[in-house]
């Protein structure tokens, strides 16, 4: 008959391993990895073969190369996390998993960490190609590894925050496909528009994870100007740039608040299909 009850920790690692196995086999993961590889390789090849780096230092180079890392990371997070919860309530998969004797928060955290590891693997490809480019143009010794560590640390926080947001969207939306689309629209397009509007009004968009994501590349700048005003006469364009600590705080806030929301909704949600 039944085995002794397995602890939550052991079940968490089972869920993590099996969910990671699932994520790594999806077309989504393969597509995102191919997209990231293709974009970063094209940039790298064009720089090496045609245009040159255009940067004076390895730090400048990495600031430029990682300029779109946050955009890539937000797409990855939205597409990997956008159906994480709705797949259990908008598809028959939930009837296989949710009837098992495992606490829902254990399943969700296993799935969350699996999605993070899959997303981080894609992000690391981007990071690695950037380091390769910096080493090619300026030599390995010139690569600012300490700053790189800070940048990767911010990327980790950014992925955690963006995935939490995507998970919570998927908790509120029944259809897995719609959950992914909403995650992409809100995290990618929505925040871009809102950030722009707020900056035009000279208000710092401190609530936006995409705003915080700028710090991933801007940490390579020697100085960070928090508020930059460009323009002549009455025409002014104002941009805000987060300090690393501020960016980390925003990302951490997203991570904690949205993951708590996702856990709460997942625990209470019913399979009414």
């Amino acid at each position, binding site marked *: 008959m*039944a085995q002794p009850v397995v602890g939550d920790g*052991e079940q968490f690692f089972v869920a993590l391993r099996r969910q990671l196995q*699932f994520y790594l086999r999806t077309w989504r993961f393969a597509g995102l990895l191919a997209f990231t590889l293709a974009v970063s390789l094209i940039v790298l090849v064009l720089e090496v073969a045609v245009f040159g780096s255009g940067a004076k230092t390895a730090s400048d180079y990495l600031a430029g190369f990682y300029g779109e890392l946050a955009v890539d990371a937000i797409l990855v997070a939205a597409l990997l996390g956008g159906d994480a919860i709705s797949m259990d309530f908008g598809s*028959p998969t939930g009837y*296989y998993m949710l*009837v098992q*004797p495992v606490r829902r928060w254990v399943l969700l955290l296993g799935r969350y960490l699996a999605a993070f590891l899959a997303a981080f693997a894609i992000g690391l490809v981007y990071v690695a190609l950037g380091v390769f480019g910096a080493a090619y143009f300026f030599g390995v010794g010139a690569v600012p590894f300490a700053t790189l560590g800070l940048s990767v640390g911010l990327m980790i926080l950014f992925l955690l925050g963006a995935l939490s947001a995507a998970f919570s969207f998927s908790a509120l939306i029944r259809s897995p496909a719609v959950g992914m689309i909403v995650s992409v629209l809100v995290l990618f397009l929505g925040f871009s528009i809102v950030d722009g509007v707020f900056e035009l009004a000279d208000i710092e968009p401190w609530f936006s994870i995409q705003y915080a994501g700028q710090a991933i590349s801007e940490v390579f700048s020697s100085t960070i100007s928090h508020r930059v005003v460009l323009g002549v006469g009455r025409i002014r364009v104002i941009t805000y740039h987060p300090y690393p600590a501020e960016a980390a705080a925003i990302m951490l806030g997203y991570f904690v608040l949205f993951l708590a929301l996702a856990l709460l909704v997942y625990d209470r949600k019913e399979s*009414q299909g």
Partner: protein
Amino acid sequence: MPSIQAVGLSKSYGAFVALDNATFDYDRPGAVGYLGPNGAGKTTTLKLFTHLLRPTRGQAMINGVDVLDDPKRALWDVGSVIETPEPYAMHSVREALEYVAELRGLPADETRRQIQLYNEKLELPPLDRRTGKLSKGQRQRVVIASALLAEPSVLLLDEPTSGLDPAERVAVRNVLLELKKDRLILMSSHLLNEVTEICDRVIFINGGKILLQDSVAALSERMRARFIDVDFTAPVAPAALAPLSGITSSIQPLSDRRYRLGFDGSDPSRARLLAACQQIAPVLNFATVGSVLEDAYLQLMSGPSPGGSPPPPPPPPA
């Protein structure tokens, strides 16, 4: 302590009452059939027992543990198939089964042994095939195997043979017949003959209300079939059936050799009818029409007074 127990279990969606004050308890071993038309509340009940839904009122208890209070401990000794579950499409059959076994703490060698066992008993599809590439029947067999892997003492099955072909149904039925010897099975089904073969007890539900709970044996006693079809080896004129008039309540010709005879359902009357028929002409076939569960089902789903007066005769086929 009952294996499963519903205490005033209710589920409402606004004004709509999906399950109304269901109360029952059953202990193992045995099999309980849960019968009712679509939308009667069967799946709602099973979902409340598997923590897929939360009750509006009342309790669903498994082995003495309230499912709402501690779903992990309540479901630890339960295998279930609710609706039409699908494992992750990217997992192979073996991986889908291993995932469940690992969550339930089965050692690796025991998992291999159990997968092999149910691979033979249920004729599972190739174990390395992705579950996303399986037919509905293949996937259903994998899901049933996943519910049985950890040898739980309670099985909650929602139309478990749905989507299976006749041979697959027989395989599943045989497994359930074996399992019910030392476990409790609560299964909903539309297939009354399947319930008759597997279950010892039945619950009838309609409109969210439990109408009747009884053993199949007691139902058989109360609801005897009241029609018999008799086939003679040669044509028999209706006038030749006059000797049956004192025993039958009605005689309906179905062909020149076949008649449907109404009677009071008792065994002595049946014996007298058979003897009388054999005096008229050699009898090729002598069989009751319909089944006990079918009669009970038809009566309960159409009438307002369950379990009271004897059931009306089933309508003759067109």
